[in-house]
């Protein structure tokens, strides 16, 4: 994953408060976790739920394309999606790979539970993209 920083699109699909490091887990779970808080440098924060309407249906292809473009997704680069344990990212993988047809989209199955537990990797805190 470190090799992908600045090279591939990294899409962090967790909630903004998890991305920023203010909470460590989705809010139906206790927050005491072993990992460090934060996100992978250069990751875009596009919560998986932004791809859905309030009634649970997917947004239209045009809306989805505009959503990821507005967040800075570069369609010419491969993409890796991650979340905390690899469930929420599957929703975003489906959107990017199956609905929008991007060919090189991967899931980081270790996600934050792995990355946030690694020693010596770069981690960013806060809302900013960087």
């Amino acid at each position, binding site marked *: 994953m470190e090799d992908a920083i600045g090279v591939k699109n990294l899409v962090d699909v967790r909630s903004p408060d998890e991305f920023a490091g203010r*909470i460590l887990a989705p809010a139906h779970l206790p927050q005491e976790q072993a990992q460090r808080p934060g996100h992978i440098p250069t990751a875009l924060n596009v919560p998986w739920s932004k791809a859905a309407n*309030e009634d649970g249906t997917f947004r239209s292809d045009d809306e989805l394309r505009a959503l990821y473009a507005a967040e800075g997704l570069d369609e010419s680069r491969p993409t890796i999606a991650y979340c905390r344990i690899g*469930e929420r990212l599957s929703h975003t993988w489906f959107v990017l790979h199956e609905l929008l047809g991007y060919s090189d989209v991967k899931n980081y199955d270790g996600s934050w539970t792995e990355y946030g537990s690694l020693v010596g990797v770069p981690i960013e805190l806060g809302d900013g993209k960087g």
Partner: protein
Amino acid sequence: MCGAPTQTMTLPPGVDLAKETVLAGRVVAGDTGVGGAFVRLLDASGEFTAEVVSSATGDFRFFAGPGSWTVRALHCSGSGSAVVTADRPGLHPVDVAVA
């Protein structure tokens, strides 16, 4: 998502209210608890943070952090929302009326 547990008013063992900011309450219609409602937690900017399904008696619970939160409930009988400001860790009660 991530295996939302069955919602009850009893906190799981090991939850330290000195560290955890817990938002808990009931979805109600009048005085009656509303079970099976989708209960969504929105952060201070209105962004989706988590969702659970209320228990048969209408109970729900979130583990959040200090800040201002909106709890929104959706049920076939109606919807509603409530704002709760949690200025510190601990148990913060919040009920959501649906109509």
